[in-house]
C-alpha cells in the first residue's frame, strides 16, 4: 500500500508525497497558489504568462537548457494555470529523481529576462487567438465573468489581448516575488520516491527562497471598478460568423471544495450528465438531438459552480434546453433511484481504482489538496467517501442546487 509522508522545510515550503516503491515511475510537481483570481486588471494574465516564463531560463540554465534537460530525463511534463493555482509537473523513471528535482526547483527561480519576455508575449497572444477559433469560442470564460465578475474568480486565465499587450517584465518580476514565496507553494510527489533524499536536496536548493519579497518598485494601481477591464464584455450572446452549431453554457452556484455535499453533487452530475448512460445522454445524445448535453460541478476553494453545456443545431436549442429543464425539475421532485445510484457508484469506484494506477494521475489531487487544505486522502478513503453517498444525499443536493436556482446563460452561435 502507498505510504503518505509530509514535511515543512525551514523556509516554509511544504512537501507532501504518496510513496509506492513498486511503481515504475515517479511524478513530481510544484503547486503554487497563484491564479487569475489573484490578479488585478494590470496583472491580468500574469499567472499564466509566468507559467510560460518558468521554461525560459534561470541563472544556471538557458531556456534551451531547461527544455533540453527535461527531454534528457525522458520527462513527461508540462505546466498549467487555473483561476487558483499554477502547477509545474513531470513524471520520470525513479533513477532520474535527483536530476529532475534539481531542474524543476531551479526553474522556479526564473531569470525573467526582458528578451525572453518579449518573445513569449507573442506566443501568449497566439494562444489567445487559438482559443478564439475553438468551440465554444469563449463561452465558458464569458459565463464565469458574468457569474463571478471579471475581477476575482471570473478573471480570464489567459488574460486578454489588451492586457497581454500592455504587460511589462518589471510588473511580472514583482508579481513573481509576491506570489512565489515558499509558504505559498507545495512540492508534491507520487510513485516510486526516495522521500528523505528529496527533502534533503530541496532544503538546500531552496534555502534562499525565503528572501523573496516584492521590491515595491512597480506598484500596481487599484482596479477602477466603475468600468470593465480592457477587452472584457459581459454580453451573454457571442456571435461567431461561419459556425454551424449553437453552444450554450449555463452557470449557477455549486458546491465548494469544503462543502459537505460535494460527493453527492458529483454523483448527481454523473446520473444526470455522464457521457454514455445518464439521463441527458438517453434523452438528448442517444436520440441525436444534441452533440453534447452534460452537467458538472466545478469546485473552487471557497465557492463553486454548476456548468451545463449544450451543443446542437441552433434550431433545436430551445427545445433541448426545455428538456434539460425538465430533467432538472424531475430530479428535484423525485430524486434518483437505488439502481441509478448503484450503477454510478460502481462506475465511479472502478474509475478511481483505474485512475490511481499511474503515479502521474495521483499527483494532481495530492498536491492541490495539500496546498489548499493541508489534507491527504488515500485512494481507499476516496472510495469510501463516494460509496457512502445515499439516494437521500443526492436528492438533497438536487434540491439544494437546482430548486429555484438562478442561473446565467451564455450562447455562442452563428450570424
Amino acid at each position, binding site marked *: 500500500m502507498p505510504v503518505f509522508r509530509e514535511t515543512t522545510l525551514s523556509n516554509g515550503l511544504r512537501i507532501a508525497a504518496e510513496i509506492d516503491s*513498486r*511503481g*515504475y*515511475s515517479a511524478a513530481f510537481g510544484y503547486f503554487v497558489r497563484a491564479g487569475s483570481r489573484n490578479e488585478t486588471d494590470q496583472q491580468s494574465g500574469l499567472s499564466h504568462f509566468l507559467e510560460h516564463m518558468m*521554461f525560459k531560463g534561470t541563472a544556471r540554465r538557458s531556456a*534551451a537548457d531547461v*527544455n*533540453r534537460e*527535461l*527531454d*534528457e*530525463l*525522458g*520527462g*513527461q511534463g508540462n505546466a498549467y494555470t487555473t483561476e487558483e493555482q499554477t502547477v509545474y509537473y513531470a513524471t*520520470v*523513471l525513479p533513477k532520474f529523481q535527483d536530476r529532475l528535482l534539481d531542474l524543476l526547483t531551479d526553474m522556479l527561480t526564473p531569470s525573467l529576462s526582458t528578451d525572453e519576455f518579449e*518573445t*513569449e*508575449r*507573442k*506566443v501568449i*497572444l*497566439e*494562444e489567445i*487567438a*487559438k482559443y*478564439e*477559433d*475553438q*468551440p465554444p469560442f469563449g463561452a465558458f470564460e464569458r459565463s464565469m465573468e458574468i457569474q463571478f465578475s471579471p475581477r476575482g474568480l471570473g478573471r480570464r486565465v489567459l488574460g486578454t489581448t489588451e492586457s497581454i499587450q500592455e504587460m511589462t517584465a518589471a510588473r511580472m518580476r514583482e508579481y513573481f516575488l509576491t506570489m512565489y514565496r515558499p509558504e505559498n507553494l507545495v512540492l508534491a510527489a507520487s510513485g516510486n520516491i526516495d522521500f528523505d533524499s528529496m527533502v534533503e536536496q530541496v532544503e538546500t536548493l531552496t534555502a534562499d527562497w525565503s528572501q523573496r519579497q516584492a521590491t515595491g518598485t512597480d506598484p500596481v494601481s487599484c482596479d477602477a471598478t466603475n468600468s470593465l477591464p480592457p477587452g472584457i464584455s459581459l454580453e451573454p450572446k457571442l456571435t461567431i*460568423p461561419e*459556425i*454551424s*452549431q449553437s453552444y450554450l453554457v449555463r452557470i449557477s452556484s455549486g458546491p465548494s471544495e469544503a462543502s459537505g455535499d460535494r460527493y453527492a453533487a458529483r454523483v448527481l452530475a454523473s446520473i444526470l450528465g455522464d457521457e*454514455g*448512460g445518464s439521463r441527458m445522454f*438517453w434523452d438528448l*445524445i*442517444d*436520440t*441525436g*438531438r444534441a*452533440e453534447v448535453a452534460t452537467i458538472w460541478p466545478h469546485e473552487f476553494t471557497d465557492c463553486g459552480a454548476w456548468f451545463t453545456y449544450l*451543443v*446542437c*443545431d441552433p434550431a433545436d436549442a430551445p427545445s433541448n434546453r426545455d428538456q434539460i429543464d425538465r430533467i432538472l425539475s424531475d430530479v428535484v421532485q423525485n430524486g434518483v433511484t437505488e*439502481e441509478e445510484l*448503484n*450503477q*454510478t457508484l*460502481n*462506475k465511479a469506484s*472502478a*474509475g478511481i*481504482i*483505474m485512475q490511481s*494506477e*499511474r*503515479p502521474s494521475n495521483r499527483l494532481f489531487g495530492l498536491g492541490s489538496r495539500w496546498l489548499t487544505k493541508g489534507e491527504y486522502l488515500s485512494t481507499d478513503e476516496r472510495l469510501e467517501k463516494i460509496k457512502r453517498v445515499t439516494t437521500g444525499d443526492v436528492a438533497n443536493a438536487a434540491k439544494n442546487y437546482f430548486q429555484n436556482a438562478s442561473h446565467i446563460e451564455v450562447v455562442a452561435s452563428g450570424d
Partner: protein
Amino acid sequence: MTVLVQPMPWLRTAAFSLALRAGVDVEPDSKSGLSGLTCEMVQRGAGRHSSRDLVSIQDNLGMDRSSGVSTSTSNFGASMPAESLKEALALYAEIVLNPHLPENQLEDAKMMSLQEIRANQDEPTHRVMQRLRQLHYGNVLGRSTHGTEDGISEIKQEDVRCFFETNYHAGGSILAVAGNIEADQVFSWAENFFGQWQTKSLSEMASASGKSRYEHIKSGSSQTHIGFAFETIPYGHPDYFRMRAGIGILSDGMSSRLFDRVREQQGLCYTVTASCHSLKQHAGVFGYAGTTPERAQQTLDVTLNEINGMTEDLSESELERWKIRIQSLLIMEQESSASRASSLASDFYQVGRPITTEELESAIESLTTEQVRSYWQNHPPSDYRIVTLGPDPLNTPIDPISTPVQ
C-alpha cells in the same frame, strides 16, 4: 480471429482491444459514414440485452469503454477492474456477433452522426487536417471516419445490415488483452464466446491515390491554420525507426526542433507539430501550425525549412534524448493495461505479429545518427500536400495548378 494476451500481474486492472476489418476503406463511395454508423448501431442492443441494459451492465462492471472506426478497422475497447474481464468479453462477443441493429433507432443514430460532422465543421484544425488527409491518401483511404452529410443521408437500414454481415466476422480480427489475467484463461473465454464466429473473405486493400497539391479554405478565423503532409514508410518497414527518429528530433518533446526554433526562439505560434501516421501499406508525416495571419507565411516557410534541413546539423545528443524519451514511455506503459492492449492490437495489425517491449527497446537503442541521417538524405521530404484555413492563401512550394484528387 487472433487472440493476444499480455499478463501484467502487478496491476489491479485488465483491458481489451478488439479490432475488426470494417473500416471506412470498405464503405461504398456514396455512403461515407456507414462504418461509423454500423459501429454505433451494433451497440444499440445485442443478444438478450437492450441498449440501456448494455450500458447498465458495462457501468456496473466498472468498464471505461471506447469505440470508433479508423481507415481500415472498427474498434471496441475497455479497461476495467480485472475481475470484470470475463463478463466484459462475453458482452462484446454479443455486440459484434448478435446485435439487434434496431431499425427504429436508425434515424437517431444518423442524427448522432450528423451532429458530429457539424461539430467538426466548427473546428478549424479538424477541417484542415481532414482535408489534408484526403489530399494525402486520396478519396478512399483519406475518407473521413465521421462520414459526410450526404453519405449519412443516403444510408438505409439494409445498408447497415449488409455492412455488418459483410465486414463483422472473425477473418482478420484481433482481440488483444492485457492486465492482471492469465493467458490460458483468456484463450478459453475467447474460444467460448467467439469460437462460433464465421471467417469470411477480406476485401482487397485500396491503394493510396493522393497527390501533391495546395488548397486554401477561406475563413474569417483569428488564426491561419496550416496543415502539411508528405509521404513516408509505414510502421513495420525495416527502416521505420530511422525515419521515426527524425520526426522525433523534429517534434517530440520541448527541445525538439519545431518547438524550439519555431515557437520558443521566434514566438511564431503556440502549436507546431509533426507526427507519423501509418496505414498498412501507406503512411504519411502530418504536421500542423496555427498562427495569426500576418505571421502565417513566415511560420510556414520556417517550419518547412526546418523539416527539409533536418539532416544538416543532426547531433548525437538529439538522438540520445529521443531514445530516452521513448524508453521512458515504454517502461511507463507497464503501468497501464489499456495502453498495452491497444499497442498489442495495433502492432499486430500493422506488422502481423506482436512486438514485445524488449524488441522495441533494442530496435531503438541500436539506432545511430548515421542511419538516421542517411535515411533522411536518401528520402528527403517531397511532394508536399498543404492545406491552409484563414483569411488569405499563402505562397507554397507547390505549383498551384494541379489535377483533382482521384
